């Protein structure tokens, strides 16, 4: 893994975070491949010993997820924000996507990379008090693909650390 490649991918993730925080959602969609798979599995507490020992997030995705998205569904979610009636984000929340622990591995081809990153995404809503303030923590397992020389997200699994989402909704992207 070259330093240049790592640096380019790191900068890509920071730029993506900035677009989300600046609510430039249509620009953000441009950073996703047309065949993107964007998922956030549900989590649960399990017994360490026993037949259920495989870590739950490594399973195949036949379970209920918090997100199970395609480019089309993500696009519809973005369009909804601009309808003037998406009350969960009207007025919009203020978010800050803090991205860290970036690890870049070889992908299936030279044009792909497997990228792990951790996130702490903060949301302040309305007056930012009494339940209007949320923090979401987890890891993203991405496959990035170079399309016409530009990195794009081709696959993202968002492994949120909470079993019970301590927020009134998940109306933001990760």
């Amino acid at each position, binding site marked *: 893994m070259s330093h240049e490649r790592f640096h380019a991918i790191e900068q890509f993730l920071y730029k993506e975070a900035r677009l989300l925080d600046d609510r430039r959602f249509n620009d953000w969609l441009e950073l996703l491949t047309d065949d993107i798979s964007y998922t956030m599995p549900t989590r*649960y507490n399990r017994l360490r010993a026993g037949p259920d020992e495989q870590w739950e997030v490594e399973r195949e995705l036949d379970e209920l997820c918090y997100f199970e998205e395609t480019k089309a569904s993500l696009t519809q979610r973005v369009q909804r924000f601009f309808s003037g*009636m998406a009350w*969960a984000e009207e007025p919009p929340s203020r978010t800050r996507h803090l991205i860290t622990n970036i690890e870049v591995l070889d992908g299936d081809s030279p044009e792909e990379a497997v990228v792990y990153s951790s996130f702490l995404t903060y949301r302040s809503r309305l007056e930012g008090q009494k339940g209007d303030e949320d923090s979401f923590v987890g890891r993203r397992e991405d496959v990035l693909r170079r399309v016409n020389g530009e990195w794009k997200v081709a696959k993202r699994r968002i492994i949120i650390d909470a079993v019970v989402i301590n927020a009134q909704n998940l109306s933001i992207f990760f």
Partner: protein
Amino acid sequence: MLTDTKTLMDERAAWVKREAFLDRALYDREQERVFRRAWLFLGHESQLAQPRDFFTAYMGEEPVIVTRDGSGQIHAFLNTCRHRGMRVCRADKGNTAAFTCSYHAWTYDTTGALIGVPKHKEGYYGELNKEEWGLLLVAQVDSYKGLLFGTFDPSAPSLRAYLGDMAFYLDVILDRRAGGTELISGVHRWVMKANWKVAADNNSGDWYHVPYTHGSLARVSARRPLFQDLPNRMQVSPHPGHTLVVLLAETPEAAVRAVSPAVQEYYLHTLPETIQRLGPVRSRLSFVAGNVFPNFGWVPGSHSIRVYHPRGPECMEVWSYCFVDKDAPPEVKAAIRQDYVQRFGPSGMLEQDDGENWSQVSASSHSSLARTLEFNYQMGLGHEHSHADLPGEVGRATGELTHRSFYRRWAHEMAIEPAADGMHGDGGDA
């Protein structure tokens, strides 16, 4: 704090004081009078496919373990050790022969019986009677067509009697195919800063909020007709406190209103079986939303059932599940799961906005003056009627018949004597 419950609501439930959604003493009374007596949803039999499978759940605020024992019998008991109160099972689901408390290792089998006490001879001189110290059993556990319910009240009527004519409508979902239903694995769990009744009263049949609260989805999808006012879309209360919104279509084909083409095709394809099982009326019903008193919500159009667990006067924890016909092909189950996630759960494009509204309902009601006001439930009051084909009290979908049924039942269970006056609260006395 509210001391005089006579000013809490009127006898027709045309208004309910905001204190009902805020007051700590009323909340505590609900725990005792509603949640310790009602039949509460525990989960689905499909979550206990194998002997010794278990899952944990809540009955109101009470943590419970639900098990299938080695012989296939289903049990439910309180998830708290009888010795020192430790939570004996801290996993959400799994398969086990026994639950051993992590504190002093008291061990219980899958029926809740105490089967192991370390130092029983040396410490207790053999004098501890294990039979008396099993986990506290949920007094009655029963299934209705795959749905598991429990009640802490040994004298509660049977589950079937509790559901009353609501069962007529639940069958539209639970009994349309011979194989019945199952849950997609996984539970959506999240927290809303509002009283549980704010969600239950909406889920009871609040068609009124759909075109505006959820207007964004109509604007960005081709689903606009779903939001129209139709004369054959009605609110029904088939039993005190149990309610729904239902659409009675001209034909069984017209009642099939799935979101994705694959699911629509599946329902049309299996319609002959459904007509044969449900008969000429119920096969024409499209079950939009509803609530089984107190807190078991249904949104069948998006394949969601959910429980609004109380977590203090101004907080609830939502557990939402996705159900499918057990015999549906895997690709149809996948399409249903994906449709559900687009609309419901914390990320759902419909449910996101409910979370915002309900939280702000609470946040803007708890101040000293605002809390003395009431909520208005008078829409359609006096226009309730019966229907030749549909059991229960019936009204227009755009109405509040279902809400009033919910609060009248709530007042009855709470032993609250309502005010006689109909249309207005008397304001400002709390």
